[in-house]
């Protein structure tokens, strides 16, 4: 069966490449605010189980629509593929180079996805283009990609489309979410009845693929949590002269190792959502860019007070003391394990420096090693979870055709995905967390599916989120 091909065609600088980039989830497509970025056709195959089902082809913009229409009209009546005939007739005409190039996929039978910028009025050149495409007699659909918020001309465009296209649809290549992408793919079925089964198959595969990504994301997040929460670091303390400096150095290594593990998880999530150029860069005030153990991070992404109250009841007087500190205006403290075997709380830390006074206990491994971690503050688990959720939300919904990568993402207001979790979930989390820091493998394995399910449920919610690409 021949591969279905859809050529993305339009006037220069209307966002053809952006539409294609978002639709095909390929951010390697060259996109630029300057017209004329695409000079040659480039195809982007949609593969399912190794088989090419559909192919999107990016094309250069029209350069001589008036002349193209003029010449095509002269060919009407000949019982041949007009696009091919025109390409043959003007093969050596350099003035028509781009126009002939964009007709190449049409000449070989591709359907047309005509892209316009709906925030400007239709002009004679657009009408010429639409009519020229109509004369090629290929199945076609129009896509309105509004480059700004001006909606005054939408009705004018729709009115133009009614004359020349089988269907039309709004699609913002810079803000389209997964759901909108699927909806556009779904709508492609309207281009040609014969294509419906293949397009339906593609849409179904895309939906399954998305679900797979969410499942894989849940697994990445869970395994990263397990790794970081159980993480411990030990170093030889023989020949140590300055005990304080040694401890500070060890703390620093611990923090950077945890940050590195988190970064690796983020990289895997980014790959999963097929972003090669877009890097979720968080700077300045952004929570995710701050130090993992910074005070701000704790207070914004940590547990809510209600959840802490619950944990206080579960955890006993020591935790209640920590809650008192919190209510007293201090930030949440950090306490450190005083040894895996003891399994009791260390000391709550308040004030400005969260890591100051962290207890480090020498574990007698030949009396030469000092160990730090695992971190027995359950808040770490929720901070990490919320950071991962935030990362997935931003990455999964970032349209591949969008190139205005932000310097910094304002996420402070969106903190706390777990803030909406019910008491039951928090209780399970606590049990699982305790099991990890106490290295209770049986309990960890027993609770793992439940925790994974919680994470997956939150990712499903995030998947339906629609605000990530808002300008």
């Amino acid at each position: 069966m021949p591969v279905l091909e859809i050529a993305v065609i339009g006037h220069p600088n209307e966002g053809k490449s952006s539409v294609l980039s978002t639709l095909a989830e390929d951010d390697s497509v060259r996109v630029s605010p300057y017209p004329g970025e695409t000079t040659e056709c480039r195809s982007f195959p949609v593969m399912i189980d190794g088989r090419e089902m559909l192919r999107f082809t990016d094309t250069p913009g029209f350069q001589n629509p008036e002349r193209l229409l003029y010449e095509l009209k002269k060919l009407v009546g000949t019982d041949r593929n007009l696009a091919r005939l025109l390409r043959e007739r003007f093969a050596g005409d350099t003035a028509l180079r781009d126009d002939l190039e964009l007709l190449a996929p049409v000449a070989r039978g591709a359907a047309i996805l005509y892209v316009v910028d709906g925030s400007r009025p239709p002009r004679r050149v657009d009408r010429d283009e639409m009519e020229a495409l109509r004369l090629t007699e290929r199945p076609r659909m129009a896509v309105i990609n509004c480059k700004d918020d001006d909606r005054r001309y939408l009705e004018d465009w729709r009115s133009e489309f009614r004359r020349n296209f089988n269907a039309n649809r709004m699609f913002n290549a810079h803000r389209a979410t997964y759901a909108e992408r699927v909806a556009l793919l779904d709508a492609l079925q309207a281009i040609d009845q014969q294509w419906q089964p293949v397009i339906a198959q593609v849409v179904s595969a895309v939906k399954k693929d998305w679900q797979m990504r969410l499942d894989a994301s849940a697994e990445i997040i869970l395994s990263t949590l397990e790794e970081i929460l159980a993480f411990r670091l030990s170093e030889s303390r023989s020949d140590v002269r300055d005990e304080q400096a040694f401890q500070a150095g060890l703390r620093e290594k611990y923090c950077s190792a945890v940050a590195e593990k988190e970064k690796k998880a983020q990289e895997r999530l980014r790959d999963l959502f097929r972003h090669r150029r877009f890097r979720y860069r968080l700077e300045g005030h952004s929570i995710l860019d701050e130090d993992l153990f910074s005070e701000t991070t704790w207070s914004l992404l940590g547990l809510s007070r209600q959840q802490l109250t619950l944990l206080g009841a579960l955890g006993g007087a020591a935790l209640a003391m920590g809650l008192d500190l919190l209510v007293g205006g201090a930030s949440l403290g950090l306490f450190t394990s005083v040894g895996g075997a003891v399994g009791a709380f260390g000391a709550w830390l308040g004030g400005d420096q969260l890591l100051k006074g962290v207890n480090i206990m020498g574990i007698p491994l030949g009396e030469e090693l000092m160990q730090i971690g695992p971190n027995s503050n359950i808040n770490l688990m929720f901070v990490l979870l919320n950071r991962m959720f935030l990362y997935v939300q931003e990455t999964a919904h970032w349209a591949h055709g969008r190139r205005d990568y932000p310097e910094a993402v304002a996420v402070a207001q969106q903190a706390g995905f777990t803030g909406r979790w019910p008491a039951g979930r928090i209780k399970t989390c606590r049990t699982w967390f305790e099991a990890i820091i106490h290295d209770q493998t049986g309990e960890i394995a027993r609770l793992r599916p439940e925790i994974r399910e919680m994470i997956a449920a939150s990712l499903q919610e995030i998947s339906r989120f629609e605000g990530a690409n808002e300008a």
Partner: protein
Amino acid sequence: MRKHRHLKGVSEHPAEHCRLPDCLRHWKETRPSGKIPGMKTSWSIGDSIDLEYFSTLDQDISYHELQERDRRIVEGIPSVTREKALFAWLRARRREADGLVPGETFLAVLATLRLVLIVLGLLIGFAAGWGFFTYLGRTPVNVLYFFALFILPQWLFVLLALLALLPGRGLGLYPPLQLAGALLRRFYAAASAKLLARLDAEKRLRLSSFAGQSRVSGGRLKMVLCWLAAALTQGFACAANVGLLLSSLMKIAVTDLAFGWQSTLDFSAEKLFASARFLAWPWSWLWPEGVGHPNLAQIGGSRIVLKEGIARLQTEDLVSWWPFLLLCLLVYGLLPRLLLWAFCRWREHRALAHAMARMPEAEELWRRMRSPLVSTDGLPDLGGAVSVTIAPTDSPRPKKAFPTRPAMLAVPEELLSGLPHEAMSAWLAAVGLRLVAMRSLPDEYGARLDFPAAIAKELGGLDAGVALCLLAESWLPPIAGFLELLRRLRAAIGERRPIIIALIGKSKNEALLSAPDDPVMLTVWRQKLAALADANLRILPFDSEES
């Protein structure tokens, strides 16, 4: 979006000087050209470059600001002429600029190049002469070698140069230029195609624009640069001849030189004497036979026959050649070069004057400086108070330009019905254009094909100063079809008539006339049109303040 540049007068800020390298700073400070009012009398190539450079900087400044600034520059000049005004304008702009501007830099580099060529010529000429006149007492210096090395090749070069400089042939035959031109064209064609394909749209556009601007500047200054190159080579040759003369004189003065001649062929002393007498004709009135050139006996006496050795030759005969040789060098080597150099310099200045007279930027500037600023705005209502001192208000009172250039406006058919004619005329008038006719630019390709010829016919009946103004929407990128129309219009109406693209933005509140609000698209328009290399094509973005 708009850059506002105001004249600041002479900058005394030390930072300005700090930016320049010492040698260039010294050159800028001491260079007489363009610094002292009234001193400058002729154009330099640097003036042309700077005038174009400053005009490019002005393209984002509103017409009113430009006019006010430029009028102020010429205000104090008595009996102002075009040249005086333009010199004054350049002086003012250079004073305002930070550091060296391109034209001044070019002149600085040129002065250095000139100096290097002269020194190099002197050294080469001197070394050649010194080497040639080295006489170790065994064999006298062969005068035939002297002619073969120092006179004949120079005649050949002079002949080639004269052929190239023949009236009507320009410098097309000048071999170094021809060769360099052919090589450059080949390299450009091969490299640009490969390079452009690899670049992204922004860089491709910038490069095409640069190439277009270079073609405009190059086209304008082509002849100037050719004559400049020719003058430089002749200058180098003059220096080489001077070096040769100096070394010859020095050798003759401080060493014991002997000159002779020899030939295997049956070449008699009589024939050589006849040749020498012929060559010495130009100075024979001053230095006769025996002084200005050797006589027959001296020539016969200086013939070297190997088997006989040189012992029999008389010293008087052997030294009789030197005045003749030096005079040959002077008359047949240095003099033609000097004449050619002077001719090239004269042609260079003439070409420059011609280029400056046709320069659209200079024309526009001179037009602007002549247009009086007309203000029709009333003073604030003083409510009957008579003796009140009016303090200057913060906002400058808008002034209107006196429309000086007549223009025909072509409006795309689809925009014509919605075009507010009065507002359009008012805007054009505000930027110095007087609307004399309005025509519809057909939307349909077939009808548009005939448009250039029709417009050319109509404009042909009007004054040569009437500009053709085309209305276009800035938010639609200039596609190849539109650029082709511009090319055909230019071909139809001739290269000197200005074509102005009046650019409007996306309409706001249903008003068709609004300012272009996308700086990227404005840049795209500028660069695409610059790539056309049309010296008389410019963009006029709509400005609501001006209208």
